[in-house]
């Protein structure tokens, strides 16, 4: 399964990069979201993935023993997911503003540094 996830990360990154290189701002945004997802899985994978044993301490024990999923990448990813929502929201609003101002979705139209956007 790890190998499948490795390939999946590659696909997510490739798609993300391809979208970022488009001229459309909406595609740019979606591309960034995909890159974020790919990175999340990357971090997840690096913590050694384990099936069916979440990092939760059982009823009558005080310490996690045996095999369990690594909690550290999970905490990292959880943070990343929430932050990426903030980022997406902000980017969408920026996009919205730019569109309202320029009446265009074309990134090339942004190539007017003197204008007050």
């Amino acid at each position, binding site marked *: 399964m790890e190998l499948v996830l490795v390939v999946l990360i590659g696909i997510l990154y490739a798609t993300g990069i391809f979208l970022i290189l488009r001229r459309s701002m909406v595609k740019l945004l979606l591309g960034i979201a995909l890159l974020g997802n790919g990175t999340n899985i990357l971090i997840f994978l690096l913590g050694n993935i384990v099936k069916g044993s*979440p990092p*939760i*301490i059982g009823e009558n024990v005080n310490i996690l023993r045996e095999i369990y999923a690594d909690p550290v990448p999970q905490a990292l990813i*959880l943070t990343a997911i*929430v932050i990426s*929502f*903030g980022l997406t*929201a902000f980017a*969408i*609003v920026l996009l*919205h503003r730019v569109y309202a101002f320029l009446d265009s979705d074309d990134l090339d139209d942004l190539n007017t540094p003197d204008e007050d956007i």
Partner: protein
Amino acid sequence: MSSIILKTAVRYLLPILLLFSIFLLLRGHHLPGGGFVGGLVASIAFVLHSFAHGTENTLKLLKYNPIRFIAMGLLLAACSMFIPILWGYPPMTALWVDRMIPVVGSIGTALFFDIGVYIVVVGAVLNILFTISLHSH
């Protein structure tokens, strides 16, 4: 986006979802859940309400502007961070009340921190969504 069915459903869904979000928040320390998820579920509840009744009505229901939630949440989290100083511990030390309290479970500064996170998430998400929805129409 408002249909009778949705409105009726939301009438029941809103309290249930809010209860569920608080449930997630409180159990977060021992089982999957926590301030982030709880806050997000609560936000979804209010977003559903705004779908059914319109954003203005949801804002009325909330009584306070979501921006205030952000401020309140940040304040609560920051307070719970610094309260241990009063007892002479470094900031962010988790302090717990020894007795278990029914329903809530054990009470400690980490719980208040999580509640702060919950409120900030609700405030920020609703603020973003409602601002956008109000200005899109």
